[in-house]
């Protein structure tokens, strides 16, 4: 391998730092989710998050990264195989010749996005999916759903990117995708036994708060890192991430205060996440003031969205659709309305900024295409897996808890000198 000396060191460092931060979001998500399930299932859901790190890393390096970022094979649908095994990275990635960061750094950075998107699905399948079924699900889903979508949007040679779709850090590929994929899986998987009648309250809200804090910290890498260089757009994306998270937090708890009298800590954590979901596609394209407003709206909209499942009776256990799917849609619509080239010359002009209808319509198209594609393909994958290996654990395992049935472990053993048994 020849080592190219042409890559910008600062930009490469920025992207590598971003990659480490985005990786850290997955254990953060494990804590966020882990706190929200009952104590008998906490290891199960955390393991679903951790296994995604192992599985998706291997699949991304082997083939997935190449299928996303190699030059398009035709029609903007899928990349080639020249980058399989992380080979052929001595040249800039196709369509990204203006980026000065080392292409391998970009590939590793993008790998972390695929990992957390797969891990997000576990929030819907919590408390009842067989561990081997979850692994098979995310492996198939990675190739059949994530890889095509990421190529369409993240590779400049993809058909949506070619249409002029902007998505700064994955409002479509990560957020809308995870939300609607999760909805498809839970419709096949079915509700948890006893839901919604039985009490399934979070076993440790403090764990969820810590997890939300780690997600928040990591999201700076997720959004600001997506500039792929140390520049003003990165600074704007970083700032907007903080602003939208803060007002998302406020929006959610203000809603709760008026709706149910008590502002909750879990609501504060969820609101911050909702704000960051919504700002993800917009981070480097809208003004800080717009980010403040978007976060506030996202906090309220997602707080409403997570309550919808009780009416329609789909058991999206930890609200992947309500927070990520709906928050992502809101972000894409906002981008179509409020993007401005005063922030980012390479960006767009939204409908309210005088950009005309075309840009708004392609943003909407990308959002709808992502939702429909993710839902449809994931539904078929889930159905096939359910008919072959079976998705659900037995009734007894569900009652005992998946920590024991799937992993032969217990999360908490309160043993002291006075321990009984």
């Amino acid at each position: 391998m020849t080592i190219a000396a042409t890559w910008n060191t600062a930009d490469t460092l920025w992207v590598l730092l971003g990659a480490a931060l985005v990786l850290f979001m997955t254990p953060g998500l494990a804590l966020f989710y882990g706190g929200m399930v009952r104590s008998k299932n906490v290891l199960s859901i955390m393991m679903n998050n951790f296994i995604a790190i192992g599985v998706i890393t291997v699949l991304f390096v082997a083939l997935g990264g190449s299928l996303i970022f190699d030059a398009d094979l035709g029609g903007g649908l899928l990349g080639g195989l020249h980058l399989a095994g992380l080979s052929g990275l001595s040249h800039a990635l196709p369509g990204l010749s203006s980026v000065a960061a080392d292409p391998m750094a970009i590939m590793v950075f993008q790998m972390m996005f695929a990992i957390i998107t797969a891990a997000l699905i576990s929030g819907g399948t919590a408390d009842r999916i067989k561990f081997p079924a979850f692994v098979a699900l995310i492996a198939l889903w990675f190739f059949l759903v994530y890889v095509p979508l990421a190529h369409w949007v993240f590779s400049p040679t993809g058909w949506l990117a070619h249409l002029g779709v902007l998505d700064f850090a994955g409002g479509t590929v990560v957020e809308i995708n995870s939300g609607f994929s999760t909805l498809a899986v839970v419709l096949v998987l079915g509700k948890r036994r006893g839901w919604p009648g039985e009490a399934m309250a979070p076993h440790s809200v403090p764990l969820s708060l810590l997890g939300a804090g780690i997600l928040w910290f990591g999201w700076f890498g997720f959004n600001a890192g997506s500039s792929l260089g140390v520049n003003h757009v990165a600074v704007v994306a970083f700032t907007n991430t903080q602003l939208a998270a803060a007002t998302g937090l406020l929006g959610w708890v203000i809603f709760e205060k008026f709706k149910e009298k008590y502002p909750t800590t879990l609501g504060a954590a969820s609101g911050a996440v909702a704000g960051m979901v919504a700002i993800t596609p917009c981070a480097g394209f809208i003004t800080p003031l717009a980010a403040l407003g978007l976060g506030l709206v996202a906090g309220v909209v997602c707080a409403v969205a997570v309550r919808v499942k009780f009416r329609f009776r789909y058991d999206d256990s930890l609200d992947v659709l309500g927070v990520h799917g709906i928050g992502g849609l809101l972000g894409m619509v906002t981008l179509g309305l409020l993007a401005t080239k005063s922030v980012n010359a390479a960006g767009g002009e939204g409908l309210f900024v005088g950009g005309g209808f075309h840009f708004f319509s392609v943003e909407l198209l990308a959002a709808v295409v992502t939702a429909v594609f993710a839902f449809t393909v994931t539904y078929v994958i889930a159905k096939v897996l359910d008919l072959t290996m079976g998705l659900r654990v037995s009734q007894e395992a569900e009652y005992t808890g998946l920590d024991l049935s799937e992993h032969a472990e217990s999360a908490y053993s309160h043993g002291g000198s006075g321990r009984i048994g």
Partner: protein
Amino acid sequence: MKLIVAVVKPFVVAKIKDALQEAGVLGMTVSEAHGFGRQRGHTEVYRGGEYEVDFVPKARIEIMVSDERVDELVALIVDTARTGTIGDGKVWVMPLATTVRVRTGERGADAL
């Protein structure tokens, strides 16, 4: 011999222990309990999902006493446990057929 059982609010346990020790009671057993009486439970809300928590945390105190001290000690526990609000708990007394001190094998009143 009698067994006095008191289910009380957890925060009065320390006061009851002190009062009973002062009255010369030599031992007691305390366990965590959950239940409801007229106090009922409460509602918790997580992301709009409402969960009824039917059982309220309580402490269950058990002491074995001789017949002649029962009324005095029950009164002591009740007085100490009373806050005057709903959920103060209950005290009841049951006959004991026998008691055995494990270390010495003493039985009956000698084992109290």
